[in-house]
């Protein structure tokens, strides 16, 4: 599904991501973990076209997407959510999701129809499935933090992605919010047969749903495999899980 081959990115001499290779199979739930500044968000931005890699290639379904602009990559079936909540704050919840449907279905060039009437049912259905049906007319920026994260997931899902990249989907959430968010994610991924790639701080979350874990440290991947293997890896234990040598 997604393949990253030897991708590097340096900013003015500082190497943020170095020779990272990573493969995510179709339907898999994969996590990238690592301490702050390990290069996880940069790696995501390289995959989604927000940054151009200095070297290396990114393939989606076998097609080379390296260097394509974000809107093209999005159109090819990749959805993403951002670490800082990234919604359209002054539009209503309904309009947020509907805009994503309109864009994805190519209605954006239509400058004469009334947008209210388009993609109504799909939008309402999607809001129901992410549990925001009651908030449809709320101005998105006034939602609680947890609900904004839910909405962001909804916006990403409206583009009908095959693979979803989530940058810290539970960042800043309380324990109960985290629990709900992860349950929602797992259900959506199952229902839509989605491939998920996410970064996360909360190790309980990672080990509860990830089928594959890659550990980043100082821009490199130092371990990559099934959760049990990664947990047992001595280098990972030393640099990340906090064990002293």
């Amino acid at each position, binding site marked *: 599904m997604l393949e990253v081959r030897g991708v590097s990115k340096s900013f003015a001499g500082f190497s943020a991501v170095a020779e990272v290779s990573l493969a995510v199979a179709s339907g898999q739930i994969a996590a990238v973990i690592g301490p702050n500044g390990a290069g996880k968000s940069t790696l995501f931005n390289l995959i989604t076209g927000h940054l151009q890699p200095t070297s290396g290639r990114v393939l989606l379904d076998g097609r080379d997407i390296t260097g394509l602009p974000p809107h093209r990559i999005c159109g090819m079936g990749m959805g993403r959510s951002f670490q800082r909540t*990234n919604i359209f704050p002054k539009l209503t919840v309904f309009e947020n999701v509907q805009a994503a449907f309109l*864009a994805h279905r190519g209605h954006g060039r239509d400058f004469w129809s009334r*947008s209210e009437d388009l993609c109504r049912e799909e939008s309402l259905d999607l809001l129901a499935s992410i549990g925001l049906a009651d908030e449809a007319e709320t101005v998105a920026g006034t939602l609680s933090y947890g609900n904004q994260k839910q909405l962001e997931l909804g916006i990403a899902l*409206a583009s009908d992605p095959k693979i979803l990249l989530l940058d810290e989907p539970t960042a800043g959430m309380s324990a109960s919010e985290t629990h709900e968010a992860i349950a929602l994610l797992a259900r959506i991924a199952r229902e839509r047969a989605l491939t998920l790639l996410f970064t996360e701080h909360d190790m309980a979350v990672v080990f509860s749903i990830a089928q594959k874990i890659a550990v980043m440290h100082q821009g490199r991947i130092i371990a990559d495999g099934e959760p049990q293997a990664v947990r047992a890896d001595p280098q990972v234990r030393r640099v990340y899980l906090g064990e002293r040598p």
Partner: protein
Amino acid sequence: MRGRRQGLLQRIPWTLVLFLAAAAVPWLGSRYYTSIATLIAIDALFAVSLNLLLGTTGLVSFGHVAYFGIGAYLCGILMKTYGVPFTLALPGTVLGTALFALAFGFFCVRLIRIYFAMLTLAFSQIVWAICYKWNGVTGGDQGLPDVPYPDFSWMSAVPGLDHLRVDGQFYLVTIALVALSLAAMRRIIGSPFGRMLTTIRENPERAAFIGVNVRAYELAAFVTAGAFAGIAGALFGIYSRGVFADFVYWPKSAEVMIMTILGGMGHFWGPVVGAATLVLLNDQITAATQYWSLVLGVMLLALLFLFPGGIVGGIVAGFERLRRWTARRGRA
């Protein structure tokens, strides 16, 4: 009871009422009122076209006057130099202005925020410099005086309009064109295309990742706004009976931005209200005092602090508060 009253208020087609009221101005019989009303209509169109960028797409253009001026010059040159009738000159002007907006916008949308604003300003100053110096075509600093009025002889054949003076006839054509333009822009803003523009205003990063080609949409908005500004400019050239270089000079960009912000850029009718307010106040206050700019400055200051949403934003917020207050009293 309240519900029914509100329903009745909403059923009245307010835009039609407004249009008919505006159309009645020439029958007041005052050349002066007709002149002021024409100016308000033209400035309203100009300001709404700017708001397509400012309020809808979130693009701050300091050089919107370029397209107003290009429209005025194109229409003036076509009508005066080449004797093209207004009915052909206007579509030609719209097309020409749109092409200029496409060429300049192509570079502008490659930059963001203040750099975008500066580049729009730079292009408008280039246009001004060319208009000011190119004597052979634009008349240089002498401008292009005596742009003819369009031929309105057909109007004299229409019963009821045959007694109108030519300025009254031009006014009617102006508000008809302005009304059509506003209706078209309203339609565009309410369309899926318009929704894409609001997503760009709200969050360009996210917009790109719902599949919106941000630059292409910004360019489309820029060209559309430029074309409508061109219509306003074409009308203004005829209204002024001539086209002069200060039509393209940057203070006019500031003026139209003040109108838009004064009226409220968060609402479709905000710039219209802003244009009317500024034109009327300018007219009244310059008659009373020479400190017009001081009055304007103080007014803007007060407005920005008290009603950040502009006049229309303030009114809407006021109504909202009133509605909540009466609802609370109704319950108590």
